[in-house]
């Protein structure tokens, strides 16, 4: 059974906040849920399946289901970090296709900015029973340097440069100038990026995403229901998920899990990278984007630097408009997880509801890819391909 077309995204809502000092994480989740339901033209009582991940307080989905007063017959709280929400879309499709759900709600929310997290440079001690913890924590793995390890090797193997990586931030900033909610709205240049302070070599401050509060929610439903609603039809035509890790010591940091999550999604969809009009690509760091573009097949391995240079990712300028809301690099990265906002901007593009300055003309095919966890150790890639019907 193919999942192609088993579900449509009929509701997509992003919280406008970037600093929510006066709101709880649970309230942010619930506000996002209400926003997505209103967007779809559905109500809380229509929801019969709920999906969340580790940003939702409580044991799995239970506290949020209780807090929001949901009555569901299917649920999932697979937590793979920032790509959990792409995974949730795939799992929602499975539930719909097997008649275990009709209206699936997916939420993400968090407030790391209000809770005082300023940077991604501090190693965090975890549970020592986690098998790798005692063999990694002593060496200071933080967020930034785990992605930097990949960037350094990519530069060594393929000649990728800091200037090429900087083009990714430049493109995001061109888009963010039109997003009134974006944290960083100033257009930056390649020089601005490479002259910003080094955080974890070779990544500079402007190679990193923002730390923000906020959230988002999606409603996925079956075709029969989607066609009764008043929103443009955004059909899910491809999904894929895959983990990548240290492979017992056979570490290879030149590629991401997108190399494995992409092919099943492309095969299901029946389309190829050159068909895509708009791409939402997870942008925790500039290097994350570059590697995922290669691994999803938008260019050959090692050619990502050339592919992203000279504005190729800028809407209206280049061949592959990406992250037209400004992405994690400039707009927001709620709960330090950017997966759901990637899907939301792809839905806006397919509906023709992106900002007019960044709207891709005749946008009928889009991809929203996430990378959750740590690119330098263990992560999960998850791919969603969408079609405007």
């Amino acid at each position, binding site marked *: 059974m193919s999942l192609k077309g088993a579900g449509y995204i009929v509701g997509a809502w992003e919280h406008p906040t970037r600093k929510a000092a006066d709101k709880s994480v649970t309230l942010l989740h619930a506000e996002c849920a209400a926003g997505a339901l209103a967007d779809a033209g559905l109500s809380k009582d229509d929801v019969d399946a709920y999906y969340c991940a580790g940003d939702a307080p409580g044991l799995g989905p239970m506290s949020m289901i209780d807090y929001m007063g949901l009555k569901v017959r299917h649920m999932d709280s697979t937590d793979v970090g920032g790509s959990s929400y792409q995974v949730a879309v795939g799992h929602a499709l499975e539930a719909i296709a097997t008649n275990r759900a009709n209206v699936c709600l997916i939420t993400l929310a968090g407030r790391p900015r209000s809770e005082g997290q300023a*940077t991604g*440079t501090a*190693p965090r*001690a*975890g549970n*020592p*029973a986690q*098998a*790798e*913890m*005692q*063999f*990694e*924590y*002593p*060496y*200071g*793995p*933080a967020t*930034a*340097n785990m992605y*930097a*390890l*990949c*960037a*350094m*090797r990519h530069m*060594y193997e393929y000649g990728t440069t800091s200037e090429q990586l900087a083009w990714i931030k430049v493109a995001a900033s061109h888009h963010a100038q039109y997003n009134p909610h974006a944290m960083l709205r100033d257009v930056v240049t390649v020089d601005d990026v490479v002259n910003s*302070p*080094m*955080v*974890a*070599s*070779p*990544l500079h401050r402007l190679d990193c995403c923002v730390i923000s509060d906020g959230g988002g929610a999606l409603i996925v439903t079956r075709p029969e229901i989607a066609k009764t609603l008043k929103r443009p039809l955004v059909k899910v035509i491809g999904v894929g998920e895959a983990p990548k890790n*240290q*492979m*017992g*010591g*056979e*570490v290879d*940091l030149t590629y991401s899990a997108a190399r494995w999550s992409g092919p099943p999604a492309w095969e299901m969809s029946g389309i190829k990278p050159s068909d895509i009009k708009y791409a939402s690509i997870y942008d925790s760091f500039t290097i994350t984007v570059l590697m995922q573009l290669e691994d999803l097949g938008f260019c050959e391995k090692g050619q990502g630097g050339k592919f992203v240079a000279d504005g190729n990712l800028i809407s209206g300028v280049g061949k592959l408009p990406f992250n037209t809301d400004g992405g994690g690099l400039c707009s927001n990265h709620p709960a330090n997880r950017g997966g759901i906002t990637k899907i939301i901007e792809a839905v806006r593009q397919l509906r023709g509801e992106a900002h007019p300055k960044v709207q891709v003309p005749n946008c009928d095919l889009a991809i929203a890819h996430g990378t959750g966890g740590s690119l330098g*150790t263990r992560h999960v890639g998850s791919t969603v391909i969408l079609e405007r019907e």
Partner: protein
Amino acid sequence: MAYVQRKIPFVGTPDTNPETKPFFDGAAAGKLVIPQCVQTKKYIWYPRGISPFTLGPVEWKEVSGEGTVYTFSVMERANPPYCIAYVQLAEGPRMMTNIVDIDFKDVKIGMKVKLKFIEAEGGQAMPFFAPA
């Protein structure tokens, strides 16, 4: 810039995961002892009591302590800065570590490094790598 040794944090104790006792006993004696997959003969990192290649048994073996830098990053935001890296051991596996006793501007991918044990918080020795 002169090298400054940071304090090495640790979480749990060597007894937390009993399966890794051969590694910690070896480290305490100044030896790098890691598992080898009995069936495939591949050496494994990080240490564990079962092979991720076969889910079969492992044998614990002392390795040479010779390695090559696979990749690295200097965390310049930290005080003192430190250089995290993956080092490929002569025996095969790539392990997370720090490069120590070097001016960080001289660290290069492909450079030869050698094992050096440094005591972490709690007293147990952990493997680091210095220029060979």
